[in-house]
């Protein structure tokens, strides 16, 4: 009974997340415009770059702009939800959230998933539309689209777990912003936000590829460079492994943070 009711509650939070994201029309439009601007700049940049000198036939401006469209899609769909937890902890509102019959972290994740589902849809239309407009092609085999969607969902789920841990860190640090700043720079550099990790020199490529950041951005975006079923399977396996590891870590952080909050009252 309680089990069924918990799933119902999580569904309600997911629905809330979707509704709130859908209501942010202006913010979505502004982020969409920024997304298009980023893609426009890098489309011009990649076209002006003598990529042929790399000797890598898969690195064409068309493929690289789609790589960027996918990483930006995931970044824009995720947003910065850690700030909600930071605000709850700093304002003391966490106390009233904890007095509900549903776990705080589970409720946050469900709500974020709902919001991300809406934004994945919205930014797919905006970002992929722009990438198609600029490049005039879709370098993804139709068979790979389902794999890409699954990979994007896994990436957003992993990112949400990171945001959860960063937000909960507020119970120790008083502010999550510095931690998020460091993490975000790590994500952009080691996650291969703009440039595929295969272009990184050694040993940085190796470091980036074994980091969890690769599973968040580079892995799904690499499907624009290599659409083979083998590569797709590797990507999904890597992401699932990191999802399990980070979920376990997030569970421990949640227990410790809520335990600390409940012991101290702040």
């Amino acid at each position, binding site marked *: 009974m309680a089990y069924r009711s918990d799933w*119902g509650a999580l569904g*309600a939070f997911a629905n*809330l997340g979707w*509704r709130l994201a859908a209501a942010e029309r202006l913010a979505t439009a502004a982020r969409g415009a920024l997304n298009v601007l980023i893609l426009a700049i890098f489309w011009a940049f990649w076209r002006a770059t003598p990529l042929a000198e790399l000797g890598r036939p898969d690195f064409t401006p068309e493929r690289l702009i789609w790589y960027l469209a996918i990483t930006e899609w995931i970044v824009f769909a995720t947003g910065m939800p850690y700030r909600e937890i930071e605000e709850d902890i700093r304002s003391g*509102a966490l106390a*009233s959230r904890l007095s*509900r019959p549903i776990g705080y972290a589970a409720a946050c994740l469900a709500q974020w998933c709902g919001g991300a589902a809406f934004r994945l849809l919205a930014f797919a239309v905006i970002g992929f539309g722009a990438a198609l407009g600029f490049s005039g092609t879709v370098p993804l085999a139709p068979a790979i689209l389902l794999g890409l969607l699954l990979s994007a969902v896994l990436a957003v789920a992993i990112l949400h777990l990171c945001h959860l841990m960063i937000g909960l860190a507020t119970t120790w640090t008083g502010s999550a912003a510095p931690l998020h700043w460091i993490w975000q720079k790590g994500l952009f550099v080691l996650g291969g936000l703009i440039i595929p990790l295969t272009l990184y020199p050694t040993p940085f490529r190796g470091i980036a590829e074994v980091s969890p950041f690769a599973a968040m951005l580079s892995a799904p975006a690499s499907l624009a460079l290599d659409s083979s079923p083998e590569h797709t399977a590797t990507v999904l396996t890597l992401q699932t492994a990191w999802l399990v590891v980070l979920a376990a870590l997030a569970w421990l952080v949640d227990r410790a943070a809520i335990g600390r909050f*409940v012991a101290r*009252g702040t």
Partner: protein
Amino acid sequence: MPAIRTDNLTKSFRVRQPALGGGWRPSRLLRPAPATDLLAVRDLSFSIEPGERVAFIGPNGAGKSTSLKMLTGILLPSSGHAEIAGFVPWRDRRKLARHIGIVFGQRSQLWWQLPVRASFDLLGQIYGVERAVYRDRLARLTDGFAIGEYIDRPVSQLSLGQRLRCEIAGALIHAPSILLLDEPTIGLDVTGKALLRDHLDAMSRHTGTTVLLTSHDTGDIERICERVIVIDHGRLLMDLPIARLKRDFLRHRTVTLVTGEETPDLAMTGVTAVAVEPYRLTLAVDTTAVPIEQVVAAALQRLTVRDLSVENPPLEEVIKAIYRGDIGNPGSSQWRPDGIPV
């Protein structure tokens, strides 16, 4: 089984003085400022039966909110025990949540951006209330708290009074057997307070919900509660019915006489004339110096009394006296050994 029971509930906080000023020294990193233990609640024991409506009062910093947080399971006690609706709150917080409703006057449980109805729908789903039951209950709460006029408005567009009525209705969506209210009328004007108190009083009487209420407003306490628990410095000061609090702690009562005499006078020890008007005399009686019955008897004997009234001072005055320490703690000379104030 009591609805709420606490046994020697104690909470202390470790407080570290932040090192401000004096410049930065590496030793500060190695040797943090010494910590001191601040005792917020000490050995708090009380019991509340199902259906009772109890005010939990004390001056600022007395430990009311800390106690309430421990009772809801969102704060771990340092020692002692508590049970609420049969659950140990800090051990079974989520199970307990299905049996209690909580209203923090200064914090919203509703969703700011959503219409009230959508917030209620969400609460209904969070608490797993069956759809048909929910619809029926929502209709009753909407009617009972008179919120139908603005239930479809976003919470952010409501006045404070409207929002607080919605907060309480929202806290009752899952029909909790116990309602915990932390300053539910804070910031409301006189009309808003009166409306909220009336609705709350009617609801709790009708449903038999146990109410534990903290408030600085004696109007809330008088209108809604039958019993008062007073704490100060984290310690239980008094626990008694409000009627007895008012009756037993009245050092002064006001006696108003309408007389046949144009300039009435009643000189007695312990009696002070507060106002003398034609055919009317208002007296302040110190009941520790002279029993009220003696004053009434003297008035009837010496004056032609056409009308007579004896009034208690407002509860606020009594509570202020308790906080000031004018009225003693249990165990002091002003209390009998059985805990009843003398």
